[in-house]
């Protein structure tokens, strides 16, 4: 247990020590999105009646920041350790693949929650945000960050070079987040795109998260919960299998 706790603490300190880059910067990015989009889009009809565009946007941005940072935390930690070679320090001790998985994913959740809370707090200054059901907010925040934390581990284990990781981020993570309904309701899309969005697990994360705030969503919150839980379990199973086999860690 101490081994796991130490690895978790190390992973948390790793991002916290460079908090300017890992926490403050993503919060600032989200604020910029918020300022620009709410300015450009002000007055447009929001997705749900009685919800302004700004109100609609803030939870989406918070979730997007959480997802990106959870992914960044595990993936960058692993690739850096692999490339610098200091991954050795955690391969020599008697740590199990469960220890690795939980320490990395929990650290990713911590970073995601700190960033998400930052975005949310700034959002509170700019608009009134209702809280319909705090439990759903927390559940989707945890599911989303854990899911992307696991995805980051897969990417970090797989990638041998920084540019491979960047490719994973730019060609998989970014499109999935941007096309998940952060900036719009998918009901505003042509029907073919709507259909496509239903295959994007990130869409369910954002839709379910928003439900926690407004009590309204594009699809049933239970469907979102089911899809994201399933996706999270699949990604975790893959991550654990890779860790157990020593994929790209032990020859």
């Amino acid at each position: 247990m101490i081994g796991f706790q130490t690895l978790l603490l190390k992973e948390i300190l790793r991002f916290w020590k460079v908090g300017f880059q890992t926490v403050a910067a993503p919060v600032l990015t989200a604020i910029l999105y918020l300022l620009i989009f709410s300015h450009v889009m002000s007055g447009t009809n929001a997705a749900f009646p009685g919800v302004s565009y700004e109100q609609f946007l803030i939870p989406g941005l918070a979730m997007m920041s959480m997802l990106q940072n959870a992914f960044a935390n595990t993936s960058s930690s692993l690739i850096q350790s692999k490339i610098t070679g200091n991954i050795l320090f955690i391969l020599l001790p008697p740590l199990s693949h469960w220890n690795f998985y939980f320490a990395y994913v929990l650290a990713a959740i911590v970073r995601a929650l700190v960033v998400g809370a930052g975005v949310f707090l700034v959002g509170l200054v700019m608009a009134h945000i209702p809280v319909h059901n705090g439990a759903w907010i927390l559940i989707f925040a945890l599911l989303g960050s854990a899911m992307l934390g696991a995805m980051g581990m897969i990417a970090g284990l797989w990638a041998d070079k920084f540019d491979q990781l960047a490719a994973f981020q730019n060609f998989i993570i970014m499109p999935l987040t941007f096309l998940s309904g952060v900036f719009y309701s998918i009901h505003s899309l042509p029907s073919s795109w709507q259909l496509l969005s239903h295959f994007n697990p990130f869409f369910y994360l954002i839709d379910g998260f928003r439900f926690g705030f407004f009590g309204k969503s594009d699809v049933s919150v239970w469907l979102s919960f089911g899809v994201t839980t399933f996706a999270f379990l699949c990604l975790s199973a893959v991550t654990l299998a890779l860790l157990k086999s020593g994929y790209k860690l032990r020859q």
Partner: protein
Amino acid sequence: MVAIETRDVRKRYGTLDALAGVSLDVREGEFFALLGPNGAGKTTLISTLAGLTSADSGGLSVMGFDVVKDYRQARRSLGIVPQEIVFDPFFSVRETLRFQAGYFGISRSAALDAWIDELLDNLSLLDKADKNMRQLSGGMKRRVLVAQALVHRPPVIVLDEPTAGVDVELRQTLWAFIRRLNQAGHTILLTTHYLEEAQQLCSRIAMMKRGAIVAMDTTDHLLNAFSERVLRVIISGELPPPLVAQRTKQSGAWHCFSINDYAEVEPLLAQMRMQRVAIQKMEVTEPDLEEVFLKVMSR
């Protein structure tokens, strides 16, 4: 008790036999050297021992714990100083050591902090304890790696070329410390390219070539079997015929005579005096591991 045991360990990378059936025993409390040219398989063997690489076949154990089945116990028993200098740039020396202890299940306590201080003191790093790893020189980083390998107090310590790039003075400090650990009962396995270090420190030596052990014996036996004590002289003029018959080798201006011990020196010199040989230069060279190594490798 056997501290390190490997039984017919094999590992192939493509067509290369990195380990071609390595069997060796290192007994508890031994100071053991594993020597061989680059690419002989020393580091691969250490990696399989540490669980960083899995062997294709054969078995390995540390303090009686199988490195696959009882990996937790085996890894707890083993401290490894890697060949490459690696470090985590996010942390200070002290943090690095606390984390490393934690990974091995040792929680923070006054006792741990005292042990870390003792390690740092022994490695002349105490004044660097709170410096970030990035601020340390290469030699200092290497000594931190030594401290990291020892922080969980493993009974078996493996040093993979620990003195590469470390200056003479620090090398002496390091060896004095490792010697004390050995005297306190730790088993030491060392790989090095500095053969005089191995000769001075190690009681037993294995030599590897192309993934296989080609010689393994006590240091004394190896030295006696493959190297000798030699009296060599440079003289003015020609060596008289009776002495030519006794000469074992001529290298350059040096005339070499093998001797078993120093008692044979005086009779040889007496003969030279009788033959009116004028000695310009004279020395006695001891058996040395470099000669053993070269002979074993060229077999």
